[in-house]
């Protein structure tokens, strides 16, 4: 960890330190209340009946048998939706409960409330739904010009007020969004060296450990209170307001403990359902998804089909990139438009490319809906462009590090959107630092460290070592003209003679440490150690989404601005008390810049508390031009690079990741421990995508909705990591910080695949790598 040279403050527990998480003790003692832990006297349990078919017309629904079951209080269908029958983040096209047609396997059709979860499930199973099965559209290629083109939606969905981009969305047909990037003269240009490749990314699941859950409580005013694990309270409320036909102020959300998110909680799951049941029955209703239901209950990462062509001069300098990226958005829009925006604008990676021709489509199919997952469009593209960079390196005789440093963007580079990178972009330095790190020792003889591990498949036979590199780029915050802001209420008052600060935002803690960082900022800004972060709820303005690596930036910015407002008020009091002057607040004291300590902060609070609520925005962005992709669409970029060392059993096709090394620029490490945690965790999820994680979908049906067959890394799969963190301040962001959470997810996957290619000599085109891909040549015999 590079140490920041500027010591901003001396108040203990401030920014740059790693204080213990305020929720840590509750989490290690089991007292932290997750959404699934909530309980209320007299509450009912909700259950959901889902479509078994990827596509079918609903001819009738008979809820009679379910209603007759003892203990059942309500059985509701689309007829019972009080307001808008469809909702969605950007386009309102997803039915609260299916009507006329189901478009994916697992689509909710009927909801039930009963006095016991088992009763609710049994009642749901008693509902008779008659379906007329229709052949599903399951190949995303069909959506872009296949002769057997079949529309998934008859009518276009309505654009919502919270559409995060202003990009045009094709209303007809199966194309959700088609974004073109035309930079330079991509059609006419030629190059000495040309490499091409087709690449495919399978469907990854966020697989948070705490399934969807929440508790809805009907209120006396005809409204409803919802305690829920989510990523964005206010956008949930906005969608709920439409569906429940209630004004927003009658829907009060409080964040319950969140057992991981990673994008999967950005869309609604049980929120409207639980509230409908609570409002209908007049009783609290709890809904908790099982793991199997969870696989049907949230969006996944978009599978991608990609075709890349890179042209370069003989020295390896890029001349052009032409690419097609096809993202399968599944049955409903979710955040597909924004994912397309990312995949296209970041689709050539962190490289200077004078000519770019890129077409990126997000399409509807009858596969499971796809939306947000950590890395959000940048993950898929990075697998494509980084595979290409290695191919190009081989073609021109450079090393993976050389080809990347040669073409790396730097501050001042112009991206294919025409946007100039106006803050540090140390891509070459990341690569150099990776290259300088020592390599781990040779193939280990401890069986646990070999491919296959304790399964005892090799004692060294067939094991080859490989090393691979990759670097990625990610936008931080919401792009393309979205009004991206957060709100902070900061209050300082005396509590038992001591100054105490209360920070209240609606920003969601999902484990990344936002509550810790909010308190750290308040300590540093106000010189007060006692800081409490209030539970996130809708009693304060929107904090925006916990996604896009944006919360420390945007809500951190809002908390800083709120503290600044409070500080100004305190300085007015200080001036009144101590005479005019310039002051600062440090470690509970008021310091005059001239006279040193003049008094206690506590004494300024004898006149009562000070409270300010502020809204804070990052600098504005612009939408992309539909035909050319021109536009200053992004707020900030973050860069991260990985080196992977793997051992591959080339005969069995089994992989052991031996070590991951990572260098990331974070601008300012607000909380160094939390930064490392994000790098470890992001790298682990990238590892999962590289070698094991895939929701397998065949003919629109999930084949592995369980943790038996959806495999994610165990502690034995995640190797030791070497991490270096750079702190090159971004002059445009609070404290110079950069978003941290997503970048490590992006580069770890292609680095691992590159290492596996190096070890095996197999030209891998798809992730996750499966053993049969590695031994495909042997299987042909």
């Amino acid at each position, binding site marked *: 960890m590079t140490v920041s040279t500027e010591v901003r403050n001396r108040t203990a527990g401030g920014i740059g330190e790693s204080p213990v998480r305020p929720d840590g003790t509750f989490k290690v003692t089991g007292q932290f209340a997750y959404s699934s832990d909530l309980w209320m006297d007299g509450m009912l349990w909700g259950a959901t009946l889902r479509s078994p078919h990827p596509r079918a017309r609903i001819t009738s629904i008979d809820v009679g048998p379910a209603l007759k079951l003892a203990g059942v209080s309500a059985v509701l269908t689309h007829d019972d939706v009080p307001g808008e029958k469809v909702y969605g983040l950007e386009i309102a096209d997803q039915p609260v409960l299916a009507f006329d047609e189901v478009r994916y396997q697992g689509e909710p059709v009927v909801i039930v409330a009963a006095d016991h979860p088992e009763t609710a499930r049994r009642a749901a199973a008693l509902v008779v739904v008659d379906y007329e099965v229709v052949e599903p559209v399951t190949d995303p290629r069909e959506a872009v010009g296949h002769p057997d083109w079949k529309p998934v939606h008859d009518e276009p969905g309505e654009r919502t007020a919270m559409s995060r981009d202003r990009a045009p969305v094709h209303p007809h047909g199966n194309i959700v969004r088609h974004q073109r990037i035309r930079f330079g003269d991509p059609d006419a240009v030629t190059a000495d060296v040309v490499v091409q490749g087709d690449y495919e990314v399978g469907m990854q699941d966020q697989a948070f450990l705490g399934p969807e859950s929440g508790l809805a409580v009907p209120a006396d005013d005809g409204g409803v209170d919802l305690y829920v694990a989510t990523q964005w309270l206010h956008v949930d409320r906005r969608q709920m307001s439409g569906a429940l036909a209630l004004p927003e102020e009658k829907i009060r959300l409080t964040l319950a403990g969140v057992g991981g998110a990673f994008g999967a909680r950005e869309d609604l799951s049980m929120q409207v359902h639980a509230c409908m049941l609570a409002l209908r029955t007049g009783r609290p209703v709890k809904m908790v998804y099982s793991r199997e239901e969870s696989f049907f209950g949230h969006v996944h990462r978009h599978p991608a089909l990609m075709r890349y062509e890179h042209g370069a001069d003989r020295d390896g300098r890029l001349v052009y990139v032409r690419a097609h990226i096809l993202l399968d958005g599944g049955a409903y829009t979710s955040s597909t438009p924004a994912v397309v925006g990312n995949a296209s604008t970041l689709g050539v990676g962190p490289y200077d490319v004078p000519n770019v021709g890129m077409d990126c489509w997000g399409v509807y199919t009858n596969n499971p809906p796809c939306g947000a997952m950590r890395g959000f469009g940048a993950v898929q593209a990075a697998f494509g462009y980084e595979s290409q960079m290695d191919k190009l390196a081989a073609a021109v005789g450079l090393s993976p590090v050389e080809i990347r440093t040669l073409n790396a963007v730097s501050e001042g580079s112009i991206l294919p959107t025409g946007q100039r990178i106006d803050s540090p972009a140390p891509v070459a330095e990341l690569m150099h630092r990776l290259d300088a790190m020592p390599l781990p020792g040779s193939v280990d003889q401890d069986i646990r460290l070999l491919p*296959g*591990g304790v399964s005892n498949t090799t004692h060294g036979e067939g094991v080859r070592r490989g090393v691979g590199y990759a670097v990625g780029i990610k936008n931080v915050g919401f792009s393309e003209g979205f009004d991206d802001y957060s709100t902070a209420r900061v209050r300082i008052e005396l509590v038992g003679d001591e100054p105490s600060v209360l920070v209240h935002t609606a920003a969601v803690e999902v484990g990344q440490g936002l509550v810790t960082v909010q308190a750290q900022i308040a300590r540093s800004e106000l010189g007060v150690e006692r800081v409490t972060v209030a539970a996130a709820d809708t009693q304060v303005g929107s904090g925006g989404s916990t996604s896009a690596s944006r919360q420390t930036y945007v809500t951190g910015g809002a908390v800083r601005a709120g503290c600044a407002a409070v500080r100004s008020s305190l300085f007015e009091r200080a001036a009144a008390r101590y005479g005019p002057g310039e002051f600062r607040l440090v470690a509970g004291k008021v310091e005059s810049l001239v006279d040193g300590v003049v008094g206690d902060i506590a004494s300024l609070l004898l006149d009562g508390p000070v409270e300010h609520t502020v809204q804070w925005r990052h600098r504005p962005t612009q939408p992309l031009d539909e035909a050319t992709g021109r536009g200053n669409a992004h707020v900030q970029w973050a860069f991260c690079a990985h080196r992977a060392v793997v051992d591959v059993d080339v005969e069995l096709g*089994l992989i052991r990741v031996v070590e991951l090394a990572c260098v990331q620029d974070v601008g300012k490490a607000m909380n160094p421990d939390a930064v490392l945690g994000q790098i470890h965790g992001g790298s682990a999820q990238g590892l999962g995508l590289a070698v094991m994680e895939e929701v*397998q979908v065949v003919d629109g049906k999930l084949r592995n909705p369980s943790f038996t067959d959806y495999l994610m890394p*165990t502690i034995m799969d995640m190797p030791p990591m070497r991490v270096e963190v750079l702190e090159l301040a971004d002059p445009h962001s609070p404290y110079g910080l950069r978003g941290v959470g997503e970048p490590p997810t992006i580069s770890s996957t292609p680095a691992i695949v590159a290492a596996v290619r190096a070890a095996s000599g197999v030209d891998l085109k798809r992730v996750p790598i499966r*053993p049969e891909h590695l031994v495909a040549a042997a299987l042909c015999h």
Partner: protein
Amino acid sequence: MEFFRPTSLAEACQLKSEHPDAVPLCGGTDVMVDINFDRRRPDALLDLTGVRELYEWSRYDSHVRVGAAVPYTTIIKELSADAPGLAIASRTVGSPQIRNRGSVGGNLGSASPAGDALPPLLAVDAVVETVSATNRRRIPIHEFFLGPKRNALQPDELIAAVHAPVAGGPQQFAKVGTRNAMVIAVCSFSLALHPDTGRVGTGIGSAAPTPLAATQAEDFLSAELADRWTGPAELPDDVVRRFGELVAGAASPIDDVRGTADYRRHALAILARRTLTWTWAEHIRRAQ
């Protein structure tokens, strides 16, 4: 659902004869999955955790008798010399938590082709001891598996124990999974050398409707080894290779969510070659 909790084997057998549909339950690591997923709604459960006899293991006449409920953890700790193949396989079962509760009786009762303990039992010609209120039977393991998740138990019978000869030679087990821990087998293979009888035993997992032995491969290798047991030297490559081919040929795998049929055959040939190489090297070491 009725629930019975006998405290002796005799009582358990009596209950089973009175309630033949009752599902026996020990560690619960298999049965509970079905119950939690609503795949199975048994009318009655027979909880065997109170039956002490089932948790005992013993050694007699150069055999070990392992009670049906002896947890994998105990097998790993106590039986790695007497039943090394079974012990190695036991290490790969589920997670540490599952190994603390799961037992061979469960694997036999479920008769899943993916039961990790089953290939090594096939490789040593184990015998399943069953018990009912009126009868005690010994069923050779090779006659025990009748079809996918079907075994030779009568409705009134319980699995009491499994008997295996104390290892007279090296044994191995290897399992392919796409994760380095806590993974269900894509396919697995166990090999046991029996220098005392001049035979070898095999067991294949997750590559056919039932666990099965590769009998042709056994016959081939036993013949090839006939003159090699004493004063052993490294095996010729073609013998090792042919053995692998015969093992792969014995399987009848399918394509499923965990892997393809072609890959399973390919992997079995490799596991067979490697386990043969390892066990034979061990045999050479012991002979020196």
